[in-house]
């Protein structure tokens, strides 16, 4: 295939995004017709895909490849085989009708342009998903469908239920998405390729590997979350908070089928094992029955359809799990049939809702006279859902029952589940089609009349398509079923669909049994609903309420964890840091044997005798004692003035140490810095009226003291370990040797500062300058409150988070706020302001917590 086909196939996935980006703009110009105009894009894609049917039939698959991230070995590659073509045609075909329908359904809505944009973007993502060859590409599109679906479900965002549905769908499908990502990467690592098309025939590399279980789990979680399998099904009914076109398109016909698509796609190399079959059949079966019963429980038409979609998804998963030729054939036919009738029925329900103003099945009746075309469309779709000939769904049922009549109990139980599920679904179909339209007319909120062309085009065309495909079943079998099933199973599949119904075969009678059962269910629908509802009430909880519990639990848990970790007390933050510092010092010393460097070794012999008092001159001892005395005085100082003086003492001692050990520059600088520090401290302290003493409670004192001692000891010991080695003095030797000859300076320290390591100094003077600016910034801000001249600081001083509840510090400052402000307003108070009560009271006393009512 040349670049032309590459480009046009890529365009299939990209064009909807472009259209989406332009949709709000186009909508502005074509207001009443936006739906029709924008539908041209999917329509064109549909037509283009139709032209690909023949080549696909001829060659099996059309690949297309565009370079994307060559540095990572990643191409944006697509391939079109029977399976992806079936899905893509469904998506673009139904998409066309949905776009038209949306234009009519949301006519006049202020955000219609945005809505159409999301819808088209979703369609692009979905097309990309089913056409992608590269697994990462598939993942990218997979996530995009989740995002667009999130936006579409939450479209009617003022309702909390819509927001909840959107978040729920996003969270659940995102969990699946993460599993898919892990699974996809694992598969790549097992097989060395990202391309789905190359994975066929590599089943041994996947199935035979020890990580198969993990891969399987990842893919199954991904598919089950996306395709709403029990027990992760609950998000789907809540997603029906979206406008009806979205439900019709995303949550029945396409997006939820992505999981089914993934499983079908993975069948050749992931499927066929006992684990695969067991999991898929069991979960699929449970989902089928659970969804169908759930559907019967509902009275809202849309909810009925939503729950029946869950059931249908379960059915599809079950069939993929079976994995026989007939099961796969049944799955392909059922997928197409379901997409056609379910989208149609959703649109019908939307039309009823739009025209009659309600979707309650108990409040509707006798609409057939007022909405005849709608009724006709409903009947066409209903035939399919009921599985009656001449609808394509009839064949789906036939195919799935085939080969299950065997003596194995597994097959028989699957058959029973299938019959029960199909019967329940058929009954739901009958209820949806018959109840609102036939029977006595009921008063509705709006006076119902026939819907507009835009609303009707979709269901009518889909209904007709459902019949037409059945009438052309031979063609359908050849052009859709065979290539799709072949793609799934990676072995040639022959279609044997025909209208020649052989009444001697038991399969036909199984169909008849299904219908009879469905009729019975329909007859006793009200009773069953009552029973189911009673059961639900008795049960007390659903997966949906569990989600809420988990979510709120998570939020509460987050709240508690965050409050515990980020409590706002600097002192405890510092305790954490120093505890870690103690660990960082002590563990290498004692667990990794760092201390050994200081311990006497065996060769030393009688080392105790060699111990001697460190050789220090008396004045050196004097300086050290001075330093220690200064340190002690800082702690013991009865007030601030003494502690500042003590600070000067220890600083001077340090300067003396520098002087004693040959660093006059350092000593001089240290002394000057110490003097300036004391001066500045004194300058500031005369302005503050501070609490004088260290009021540490004993526990804190013990804790702080221990930490300090451990860290101090650790630093000393580590330093001694360092000193036990010899210093490599290359650098200093070099500086000493070159200072005069090359750098022309005799004071080596100064030469290092301005020449050898002048760059450090440049940074350092920048630090000084920056400190100067920062201090200026700080002091400038003094002016702000004074400028207003009011005794109470103006509003901007208070943080805006919580205007009405007192924020703690302000409350604490309230009694003394006046004096503080005065202190700022008046120049230089000679005496400290009257002694304020030290802020030492227990916190609860001052803060009067008025927790703001949650804006829930």
């Amino acid at each position, binding site marked *: 295939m040349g670049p032309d086909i590459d480009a046009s196939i890529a365009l299939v996935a990209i064009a909807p995004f472009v259209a989406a980006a332009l949709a709000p703009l186009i909508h502005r110009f074509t207001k009443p017709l936006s739906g029709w105009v924008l539908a041209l894009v999917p329509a064109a894609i549909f037509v283009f895909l139709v032209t690909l049917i023949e080549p696909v039939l001829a060659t099996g698959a059309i690949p297309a490849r565009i370079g994307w991230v060559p540095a990572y070995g990643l191409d944006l590659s697509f391939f079109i085989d029977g399976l992806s073509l079936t899905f893509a045609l469904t998506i673009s075909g139904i998409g066309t009708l949905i776009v038209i329908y949306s234009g009519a359904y949301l006519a006049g809505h202020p955000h219609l342009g945005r809505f159409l944009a999301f819808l088209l973007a979703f369609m692009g993502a979905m097309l990309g998903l089913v056409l992608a060859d590269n697994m990462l590409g598939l993942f990218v599109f997979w996530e995009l469908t989740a995002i667009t679906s999130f936006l579409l479900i939450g479209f009617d965002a003022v309702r909390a239920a819509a927001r909840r549905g959107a978040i729920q769908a996003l969270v659940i499908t995102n969990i699946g998405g993460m599993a898919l990502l892990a699974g996809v990467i694992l598969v790549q690592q097992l097989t060395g390729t990202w391309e789905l098309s190359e994975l066929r025939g590599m089943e041994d590399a996947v199935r035979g590997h020890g990580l198969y279980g993990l891969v399987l789990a990842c893919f199954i979680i991904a598919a089950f979350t996306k395709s709403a399998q029990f027990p992760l099904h609950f998000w789907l009914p809540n997603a029906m908070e979206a406008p009806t076109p979205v439900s019709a398109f995303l949550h029945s016909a396409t997006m939820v089928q992505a999981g089914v698509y993934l499983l079908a796609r993975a069948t050749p190399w992931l499927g066929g094992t006992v684990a695969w079959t067991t999991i898929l059949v069991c979960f699929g079966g449970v989902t089928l029955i659970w969804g169908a019963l759930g559907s019967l429980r509902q009275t809202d038409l849309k909810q009925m359809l939503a729950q029946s979609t869950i059931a249908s998804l379960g059915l599809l998963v079950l069939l993929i799990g079976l994995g026989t030729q007939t099961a796969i054939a049944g799955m392909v036919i059922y997928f197409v049939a379901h997409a056609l009738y379910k989208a149609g029925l959703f649109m019908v329900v939307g039309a009823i809702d739009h025209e009659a103003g309600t979707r309650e099945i108990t409040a509707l009746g006798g609409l057939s006279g007022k909405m005849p075309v709608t009724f006709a469309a409903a009947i066409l779709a209903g035939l399919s859902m009921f599985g009656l000939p001449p609808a394509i769904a009839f064949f789906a049922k036939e195919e799935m029952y085939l080969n299950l009549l065997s003596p194995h109990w597994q097959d028989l139980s699957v058959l029973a589940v299938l019959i029960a599920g199909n019967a329940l679904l058929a009954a739901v179909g009958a209820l949806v089609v018959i109840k609102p339209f036939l029977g006595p007319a009921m008063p509705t909120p709006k006076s119902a009349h026939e819907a507009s062309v835009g609303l009707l085009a979709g269901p009518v065309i889909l209904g007709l398509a459902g019949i037409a495909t059945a009438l052309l079943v031979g063609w359908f079998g050849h052009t859709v079923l065979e290539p799709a099933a072949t793609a799934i199973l990676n072995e040639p599949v022959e279609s044997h669909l025909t209208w020649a119904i052989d009444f001697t075969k038991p399969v036909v009678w199984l169909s008849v049994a299904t219908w009879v059962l469905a009729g019975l269910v329909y007859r006793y629908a009200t009773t069953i609903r009552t029973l189911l509802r009673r059961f639900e009430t008795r049960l007390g909880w659903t997966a949906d309420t569990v989600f809420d519990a988990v979510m709120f639990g998570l939020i*509460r848990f987050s*709240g508690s964890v965050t*409050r515990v970790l980020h409590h*706002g*007390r600097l*002192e405890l933050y510092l305790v954490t840091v*120093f505890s870690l510092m103690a660990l960082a010092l002590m563990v290498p010393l004692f667990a990794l044997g760092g201390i050994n460097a200081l311990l006497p070794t065996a060769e030393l012999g009688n080392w105790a005798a060699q111990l001697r008092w*460190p050789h*220090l001159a008396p004045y050196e001892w004097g300086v*050290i004692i001075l*330093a*220690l005395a200064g*340190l002690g005085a*800082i702690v013991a100082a009865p007030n601030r003035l003494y*502690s500042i003086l003590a*600070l000067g003492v220890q600083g001077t001692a340090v300067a003396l*140490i520098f002087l*004693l050990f*040959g*660093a006059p*520059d*350092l000593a001089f*600088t240290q002394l000057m810095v110490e003097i*300036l520090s004391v001066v*500045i401290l004194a300058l*500031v302290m005369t302005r*503050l009226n501070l609490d004088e003493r*260290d009021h*540490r409670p004993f526990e*804190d004192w013990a804790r702080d003291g221990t930490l*300090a*001692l451990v860290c*101090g*000891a650790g*630093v*000393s*010991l580590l*330093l001694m370990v360092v*000193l036990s080695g010899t*210093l490599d003095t290359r650098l*200093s030797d070099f500086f000493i*040797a070159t200072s005069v000859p090359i750098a022309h300076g005799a004071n*080596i*320290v100064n030469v290092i500062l301005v020449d050898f390591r002048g760059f450090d100094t440049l940074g*350092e003077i920048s630090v000084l300058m920056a*400190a100067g600016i920062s201090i200026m910034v*700080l002091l400038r*801000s*003094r002016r702000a409150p004074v400028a207003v001249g009011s005794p109470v600081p103006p509003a901007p001083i208070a943080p805006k988070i*919580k205007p009405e509840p007192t*924020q703690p*510090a302000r409350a604490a*400052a309230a009694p003394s706020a006046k004096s*503080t402000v005065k202190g700022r307003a008046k120049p230089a108070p000679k005496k400290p302001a009257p002694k304020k009560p030290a*802020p030492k009271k227990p916190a609860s006393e001052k*803060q009067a*917590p008025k927790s*703001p009512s949650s*804006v*829930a």
Partner: protein
Amino acid sequence: MDYVIAALVGCFVALGIYMLLSRSLIRMLLGIIVLGNGVNLLIFTAGRLTREIAPIVPRGLDTPAGAIANPLPQALILTAIVIGFAMFCFLLVLAYRTYQALDADNTDTMRVAEPEHAPNPPLSY
């Protein structure tokens, strides 16, 4: 003698940490200074101590006659002293401004940025 100074470094560090853990801003500042002095002494000691002979080449010579104090740590410490002093100045003025604005010297009562009774996250969608 290196080991004696190393032990002294430990004392400086321990006292600095102890002061930093008190909740009063001014005491914490004193802690910062003491800790900084300790670290400077540590660098000085790590460069090994030599008595009295400053790293200055006598006039007329190209290289010093005998062993001299290690000049590199001195240069590093000089940088560190000045930086530490700049930081100290900023933090001191910050403490001063904080005291003015919040009327608090105790860090436990400064709860503007992280309010003590922070609301729980809303349980809604």
